């Protein structure tokens, strides 16, 4: 196991940027925050940026010509450019602000799907999709007569690429797939999947909610047509997210939400749409949140994904090794070299709900439940798992605290070795 990830990566210096991590819990216990796949904590620069906007030049976006309006517009547009660069998009107009990943997928499912899907067309997903990348497609399939198909997983929780190739046909119009499973940590080979999908004329949407915060994403080299992710899992504010779409696709598809800012002209009986990306940005944007997301992108870009990935993988390897030494432990998904820093687990004789509760007693915050992936959990024959998920600020000591807390929980539930 390589602990020395990068000379420049100093986890204590990073932790110092997150005010919440330095505040002890009641009884003086240190906080061990391991629910990063749900949402991440915020560095000072993000909090400060949001405060800066609200205390100094807050105004609505793309509305007023007055000083503050112009300042907000400048911030939003420079953030849009940061996002473009961050994900390697060709043009800044391909970056749409949304409220988060869920809205991004719903936008494509409705704006693109309702316009282009015909009865008998197929929407190809996988068995490990988050409900946000399954339910909108079911909904649109019902409305259009299209069919949702799920690519099965291998025994160890990877995408069964053989089955994928078989399911892919000229009927497949869109492949919508997670960049990293929020339960298994699986990272599908997106570039390969995109090539295969494009070969038969399908478009590809990547749900990047989990993948974007943990590794470099380049939409052009991956060849993806749509990418959607959330600010709050990337150390940024909640309520803001991004949809990337190739220009031609965004121009061809319909708007999803209608209202202010997304129109060109409005007549009594019809309207015409604004150019992209405004066409998809109806209503008041999450103004401070979007600008705060720019600060978060600066923050992770400065650390760099090579260092982030190396650090998180080292945590994952250490956690996997330690967790596997616990009696009755089962970790779901591929081995660490094939996944991101997520461990979803069950322990014989311990209900995930009890486990999460007892870990909380030791200041270790983890999530339990079906993690919005009910079909995946039923494939695994489970109703729930407990999930520990890691981020840039987690430490080896925190992994050890997780292990100690699980030993405490086992003891408390009278489990014997």
């Amino acid at each position: 196991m390589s602990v020395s990830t990068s000379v420049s990566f100093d986890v204590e210096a990073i932790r110092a940027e997150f005010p919440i991590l330095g505040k002890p819990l009641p009884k003086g216990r240190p906080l061990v925050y391991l629910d990063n796949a749900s949402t991440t904590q915020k560095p000072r620069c993000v909090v400060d940026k949001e405060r800066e906007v609200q205390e100094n030049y807050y105004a609505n976006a793309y509305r007023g010509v007055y000083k503050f309006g112009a300042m907000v517009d400048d911030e939003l547009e420079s953030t849009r450019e940061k996002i473009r660069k961050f994900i390697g998009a060709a043009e800044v107009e391909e970056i749409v602000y949304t409220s988060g990943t869920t809205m991004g997928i719903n936008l494509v499912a409705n704006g693109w799907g309702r316009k282009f899907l015909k009865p008998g067309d197929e929407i190809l997903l996988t068995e490990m999709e988050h409900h946000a990348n399954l339910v909108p497609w079911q909904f649109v399939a019902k409305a259009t007569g299209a069919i949702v198909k799920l690519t099965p997983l291998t025994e160890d929780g990877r995408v069964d690429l053989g089955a994928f190739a078989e399911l892919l046909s000229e009927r497949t119009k869109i492949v919508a797939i997670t960049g990293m499973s929020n339960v298994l940590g699986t990272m599908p080979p997106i570039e390969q999947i995109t090539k295969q999908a494009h070969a038969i004329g399908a478009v590809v949407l990547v749900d990047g909610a989990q993948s974007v915060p943990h590794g470099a994403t380049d939409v052009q080299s991956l060849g993806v047509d749509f990418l959607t992710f959330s600010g709050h899992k990337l150390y940024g504010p909640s309520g803001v997210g991004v949809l990337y779409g190739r220009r031609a696709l965004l121009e061809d598809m319909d708007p999803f939400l209608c209202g202010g800012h997304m129109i060109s002209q409005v007549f009594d009986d019809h309207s015409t749409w604004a150019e992209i990306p405004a066409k998809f940005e109806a209503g008041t944007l999450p103004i401070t949140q979007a600008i705060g997301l720019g600060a978060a992108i600066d923050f992770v870009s400065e650390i760099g994904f090579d260092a982030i990935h190396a650090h998180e993988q080292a945590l994952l390897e250490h956690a996997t090794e330690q967790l596997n030494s616990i009696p009755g432990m089962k970790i779901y998904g591929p081995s660490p070299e094939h996944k991101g820093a997520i461990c979803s687990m069950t322990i014989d004789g311990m209900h995930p709900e009890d486990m999460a509760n007892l870990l909380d007693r030791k200041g270790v915050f983890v999530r339990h439940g079906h993690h919005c992936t009910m079909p995946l959990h039923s494939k695994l024959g489970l109703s729930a798992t407990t999930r520990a998920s890691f981020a840039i600020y987690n430490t080896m000591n925190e992994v050890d605290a997780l292990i100690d807390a699980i030993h405490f929980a086992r003891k408390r539930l009278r489990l014997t070795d």
Partner: protein
Amino acid sequence: MSEMTIEELIDEFQFLGDWEERCDYLIDMGFDLPEMPSSEKTEQTKVHGCQSNVWLITRVRTEDGRTTLDIIADSDAMIVKGLIAVLLTLYSGKSPAEILDIEPREVFRELGLDRHLSPARKNGLNGMVQRIRELAAQVAA
């Protein structure tokens, strides 16, 4: 433990003070709860609205002209088993009319359950209460 009244349980909880100690006490109550035979754990006896599995059955008992409800319940989660034990302390051996008279929210508040349970778990607990009250109402009718 099964002999404990709800007033005694409230006293005990007040003595215990902080939630961690109460939670430990709940777990111990869960361990003392008799197990439900697995043949009784069916789709019909399952209580929906719970994050963990909960099964609940009631039996009407008539003795010396007095009708009471026997409640048998189980869960696969230990803290939930503890909550079931609380409900049994509250409802077991009571007549349907007595069950319908009980205001459980007040009891949960006194036990501190209203503040310390997650919304999901509160839903589950309310699901169980609702099931017991529905059955009591059926018998009382």
